[in-house]
């Protein structure tokens, strides 16, 4: 079986000399949902921007569905950007066309789709996030929860191999957060979720990895990882008050496997 994502030995330092990644290894198999936890400044954003070749030029390799990323080869780069759908933290960064329809069509149109095929993609993607009724609205008139859903549709329309979500729950109200979990659980797609929201990770992702100081320092089943208090503490992570991953796991036994 070809891994959806295979990152090995990824190292990167910014042109100003600040090194953000020190050899990151991470493999995500098809259908998996993996949470990537880590404190501020751990290199999470830098890592995400490597997955579709926005950043590159350091050591190591990124392979998506068997295709090795090579940012000098434009064809490969475009295919990687189709395969890896990144949903950024601020949906306003992602939605900039004047209607939801145009925005969802933006990615597939860049890939050369037109006409009925393009319309079909837009409908499929908006249907998947239950936002078909928003199709002719202007993005800046939507609520944050709606914008978040549409932002996910804008990458689903490219039929990605891997969905990467950067802090998907930030600023959402509890109901919006609940809707988002339900939505993401319903999507039959491989996911890498970068987050600080530990209950969210526990509920959505059977597996979690910690990125700290530019390295993967732990990679285990989420429930088990969250019970290692010492590990969390060492990497500036903390369970929310009152959350016991052991009992939370018992409520959803599949999470403790």
């Amino acid at each position, binding site marked *: 079986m070809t891994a959806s994502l295979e990152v090995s030995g990824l190292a990167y330092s910014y042109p100003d000399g600040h090194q953000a990644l020190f050899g990151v290894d991470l493999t995500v198999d098809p259908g998996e949902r993996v949470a990537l936890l880590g404190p501020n400044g751990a290199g999470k954003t830098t890592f995400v921007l490597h997955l579709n070749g*926005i950043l590159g030029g350091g050591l190591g390799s990124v392979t998506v569905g068997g295709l090795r990323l090579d940012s000098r080869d434009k064809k490969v780069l475009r295919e990687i950007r189709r395969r890896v759908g990144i949903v950024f933290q601020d949906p306003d960064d992602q939605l900039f066309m004047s209607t939801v329809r145009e925005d969802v069509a933006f990615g597939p149109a860049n890939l050369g789709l037109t006409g009925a095929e393009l319309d079909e993609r837009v409908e499929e993607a908006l249907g998947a996030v239950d936002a078909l009724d928003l199709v002719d609205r202007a993005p800046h008139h939507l609520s944050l929860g709606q914008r978040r859903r549409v932002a996910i549709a804008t990458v689903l329309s490219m039929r990605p191999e891997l969905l990467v979500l950067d802090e998907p729950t930030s600023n959402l109200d509890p109901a919006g957060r609940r809707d988002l979990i339900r939505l993401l659980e319903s999507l039959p797609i491989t996911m890498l979720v970068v987050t600080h929201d530990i209950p969210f990770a526990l509920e959505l992702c059977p597996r979690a990895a910690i990125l700290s100081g530019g390295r993967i320092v732990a990679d285990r089943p989420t429930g088990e990882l969250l019970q290692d208090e010492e590990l969390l503490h060492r990497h500036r992570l903390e369970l929310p008050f009152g959350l016991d991953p052991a009992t939370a796991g018992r409520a959803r036994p599949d999470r403790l496997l």
Partner: protein
Amino acid sequence: MGGLHTPVLDAARTATRTPAARASAVGGPRAAELSAAGTSGRTTLVHRLPAEAKLLAHLAFVLVVVATPGIWYWAFAAYAALLGATAVATRLRPGFLLRRMGVELPFLGFALLMPFISAGERTTVLGLSVSVHGLVAAWTLLAKATLGVLASVLLAATTEVRDLLAALRVLHAPDRMVQIAAFMVRYLGVVQGEAHRMRVARDSRAFEARHLGHVRVVAQSAGALFVRTYERGERVHLAMLARGGGDGPLPLTTAPSTAAAPAGVAAVLPLAALAVLLAGLLLGRMS
């Protein structure tokens, strides 16, 4: 990936989320450039002059240059020499000054066109028929603009932005204007960061500007950025109102950042230029 999930002022959140070093490395906000790039680690007499003295000297110098008739070629040579001496005194690298003077290029393009499109008496230069009047006008534009731009670059490179704003205030410049300038300085980095993140999000969806049709996409991004900047302006205003401000002048407190040199020194450049202009007038009267 900010850990701040409180709905605080968006601007503050963006600022904390984007350490300048990291962002500049990705091509984002280049906040460092705003802090008078030329001043880093160097202080000459010109750097130490009070900002308001430099501002007035700059204004006076430019007025003298503009008041000089275009055909007094020797006067422009004298101005250039004076400005050149000032530039040497700032010890800024010539390459840095030249790069900064690049803002003048669009005007130069216009100046180059003038000899060809002007009407009137014509002459031949290098086998091309050009208008004499246009030629003189082009020269005048070129000389005056270049001197003005170089003077501005010197002022900007030797003065901290916040000192310039304080100087405008000391000189009783219209308050609204100073406020707008102050906000521009404050939010330039934030807007650059926003534009950068939008570009990354766009490129992540396989966008490459391949043909002219893609101008529309870029224009849409610019439009979205405009709307967001406008909305941020409204939020900032609300935040000001919430703290009891927003309709009067901003209570700015600025301490001069560098030890001040005697303000009178700044008068040397415009006075010397004025002397050149007066000399020209006298000579013209006598002949």
